[in-house]
């Protein structure tokens, strides 16, 4: 129960900070010249996308350690991380089209990064479906770990494959060999937003972790 409460507090702080991000983004960050106001959604979109993918890596890493250590906490963490990853994917997949419609003139394109996120989304769904389909708790944890590790290893291949199709996506603007091509204020807002999303991610994961712990204690399996 304590974990649940902690998670809620962190999430609440994250949400307040998120409001802060938007105050900053709308009032104190310059409007992008060609894209106009639509670009503002980018402060939501990019950090969510980074964490949507990062969560899969964490699921995989936790799964590897789980198979060696058999510690149920690692399994619970992987599950929580996958659930939050799914939420962040949903966020990316909804903000993407909202931004894409005015800028690209289309809700959906089979753009590399969008395809990647859609695949991530489907992988999280598959991961959670597999967990739901197995009743034996020991079996469930092992199966989920196997799938989680495979999922993590798939991510770089998806990158390799989808990027080969021509992309409409804005090219990487933050991390690239030369200096970031984003004006300083935008970059600061983005960095701030990324931190806020990290807080949100931690808050969500702790909540889901606490919840599965409570659920487990409530009904000791037969």
């Amino acid at each position: 129960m304590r974990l649940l409460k902690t998670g809620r507090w962190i999430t609440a702080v994250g949400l307040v900070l998120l409001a802060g991000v938007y105050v900053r983004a709308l009032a104190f960050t310059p409007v992008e010249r060609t894209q106009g106001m639509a670009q503002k959604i980018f402060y939501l979109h990019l950090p969510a996308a980074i964490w949507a993918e990062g969560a899969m890596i964490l699921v995989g890493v936790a799964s590897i350690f789980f198979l060696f250590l058999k510690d149920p906490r690692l399994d619970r963490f992987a599950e929580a991380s996958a659930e939050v990853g799914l939420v962040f994917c949903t966020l990316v997949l909804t903000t993407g089209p909202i931004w894409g419609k005015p800028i690209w003139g289309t809700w959906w394109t089979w753009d590399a990064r969008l395809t990647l996120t859609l695949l991530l989304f489907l992988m999280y769904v598959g991961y959670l479906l597999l967990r739901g389909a197995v009743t034996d708790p020991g079996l469930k944890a092992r199966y989920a770990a196997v799938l989680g590790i495979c999922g993590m290893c798939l991510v770089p291949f998806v990158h390799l494959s989808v990027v080969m199709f021509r992309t409409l996506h804005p090219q990487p603007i933050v991390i690239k060999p030369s200096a970031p091509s984003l004006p300083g204020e935008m970059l600061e807002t983005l960095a701030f937003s990324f931190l806020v999303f990290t807080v949100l991610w931690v808050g969500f994961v702790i909540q889901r972790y606490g919840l599965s712990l409570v659920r487990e204690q409530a009904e000791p399996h037969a």
Partner: protein
Amino acid sequence: MLRHAWLLARKDLLVEFRSRTAILSAVVFTVLVLMVFNFGRDPTAVAAVDLAPSILWVTFTFAAMLALNRAFQLELENQALDGLLLAPVSRSSIYLGKLIANLVFVATVEAVGLPLFALFFNVRLLHVLGPLVAVLALATVGFVAVGTLFSAMTARTRFAELLLPVLLLPFMIPPLIWAVLATAALLAGRPLSEATGWLRLLAAFDIVFVTLAFALFPATVDE
């Protein structure tokens, strides 16, 4: 390890040969899908050669799914899997045996499907047959390796037939994309060197996921 794997694969194929249900349904399924594609496209608007690579790969992907679903169901029927685990046979042999049997199965379906595909869609294959078989082999090994691993898990869940495609299809997308691109390059008569890049990626995928499957398979069967 190889000897045991071969014994297991031979047993699987013998069972398959006796029952014949899975291989027949997979072949019939392939023919039907090819037919559906033929009527599902507008021949005046889209040239066959533009659509052909996708048709070929979509067909084989779904046919492979039928094979993979069957692999571990066979072992669970009378809890034969427990017997295998009890025998002094390494887990790697069990996985390899299943992988070999599945590969033979899928290869058979592909061997029947490929000439039919050429016939139905009037695609000339003979001059690129060698490289095309290489693409087929590399792509098939990759997704059958992952599929064999996953079917060991899904076979023991409810809705196995539905769950396996849901889990496996995301893993089929990268090899599928490369295979389609490579096939397209070959069928369009472009130089071989254009396809080698895709082949290399397919090989990398195979190496990573075959290794991974061998490493992870014990976790799916041992308590």
